[in-house]
């Protein structure tokens, strides 16, 4: 690990000899917004699928509290790791796709288990 922590300016990753050719781009704004917004909507959908289709169904005693607690680790896990996407566009594409799948699952579950 280099001995400085001074990489505070959000500059595009410089290409150096040690850097792999497919180095991930920082894309701060697009990745941060993608992680925060799409990460949250994805967490809501996954919590919703768990609420309807998970053990006990939507009406299980006090399960709604557990469903709410689930949001924090899913959402912030996505925000934390979204910077691993190669680019901001990748981040939005993959998280957007995951959101579509998760909301489709949520609507199916709600229709099936209502």
């Amino acid at each position, binding site marked *: 690990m280099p001995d400085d*922590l001074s990489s505070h300016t959000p500059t595009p990753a410089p290409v150096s000899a040690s850097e792999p050719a497919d180095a991930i781009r920082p894309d701060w704004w697009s990745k941060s917004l993608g992680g925060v917004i799409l990460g949250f909507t994805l967490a809501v959908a996954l919590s919703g699928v768990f609420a309807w289709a998970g053990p006990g169904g939507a009406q299980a005693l*006090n399960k709604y509290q557990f469903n709410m607690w689930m*949001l924090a680790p899913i959402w912030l896990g996505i925000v934390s790791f979204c910077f691993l996407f190669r680019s901001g566009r990748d981040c939005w594409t993959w998280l957007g796709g995951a959101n579509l799948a998760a909301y489709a699952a949520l609507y199916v579950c709600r229709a099936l288990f209502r």
Partner: protein
Amino acid sequence: MRTDVVRVYKSVHTWTGIVTGLILFIAFYAGALTMFKEPLDRWIAPPAPVSTAGLEKGSELIDGALALRPEAATGFSLVLAEGNGRPLHVTWERMRNDPDPWSAILAPDGSVEVTQLDPAGIGLLVDIVHRTAGVPGDLDLGTAVTGIASALYVVALVSGVIILLPSLVKDFLVLRVGRNLKRMWLDAHNVVGIVSLPFHIVMALSAVVFGLHDQFYDTLNEVVYEGRMRTVIEGSSPMRTLKRDPRPAAMLPPAEILARVKAFEPGFAPASLQYQGYGTGGALVRVWGADPRYLVRREGFLLMSAATGAVVDTEYMPGHQGTWSSAVSAFFSLHFGSFGGGTVRWGYFFLGLAGAFLFYSGNLLWIESRRKTERRHGGLVAQSRSTALMAAGTVGVSLGCIAGLSLTIAAGKWLHGAVEDLNGWHHGVYYAVFLGACVWAFVRGAARAGVELLWATAAATAAIPATTLLAGLLPGLGLWVSDSLGVDLVALAGALVFAWMARANARRIRQGPADSVWSGRRLRLEEAAGTAD
């Protein structure tokens, strides 16, 4: 680990850390103190009024208190003598989180005495500073601020681990004390962060939930529950099976209620009985208490009918909860440290202080990374304005928080009985010291203010044991010695640590390298240059 990944996550760590560091410092320092809220309250409170009434007089006390204060009938608690440092008493609040609720005891002559229970509310103040990081005004606003800061804190934790991973084996638990001070601070920051990582993950995630649960529930209501979440919540309420019954009815005596609780669960230690609708057929009693064998929220409760003694609900009763309720209780418990007794309390206290150190050292590292090094014979190097401001802010906010809490605790005993609104005074003293320290740090600069504020913090903290000492030596002062001497001992140890830090800081200002925001030599040179112009 690929270097590009490490580079990206270094930036993530720097930004999330620098934005949240000072908010989290306050939350962690005050949070460490909340582990000993009750001893703090007892430290300030004057000797409890005398009452020898036992539980067998419970009904008599309740009836007497309600005859004097009928408004309490809607909701009040009968607090047991055991473990509360006070005799058996009835207490009721005028509002939620009432800092100074009313209380009634049974005097030795059989009459009922009504007093304000705890005009200080110091435990509540420490708790509010913890939950809001001292953001004044609406509690919801402050908790939302700490909730968002905690969300960034989760990201800071993950990114910090990612950038440490490549060198973890080499650097783990290595503290290189030596000439390279920045290396030493970085080692210390990494060791504390990694060793207490599980604690920090638990705190960060649960604090996000505590801060943002309203927004979370609103979203789930709209998106997941089709706007019908209220019925789901009502379906889970402990009162879900009850019907209203306002007809007058005889109440079971408290001793009988507790006998039934003991029969239901012998391992449960009751602390208080919270009544609702006392004197009616639908009257309920929540028997609050602890069971050290289980992870519970601060306390659990058994819900019973106060008229018949029948068990109504066990969803919050340790060991009798359903799957979901006990899982959620475990999350609460891991945040509050309300399990495992005194060992866990002390462990959480020190982990909380270590967390405060983590954020403080993080800010120092940010400043050091931006340091412009002086070249040999190159003359004076001016440090950037941003590092000077960050240094001043770090010193002012963190020492202001510590000194403010220490002084407002000590002031509680002196102001007791001398002022009308003691709780308001507690807030006033805290904010005056906190804001004063911040202003002082920016006016004087980080280097000088650091030493001066450390001495002030040491003095404010030493005021706590000094007050107890004076109370014992000079009874004429009208002070008193409380039964929580642990508060005095911890404060004394803290004051000594702050004094040691003040001396070490003064040495650095005199002798440390001049090309630093912490150098006094630079200040003198700058002043000399200023007068020459």
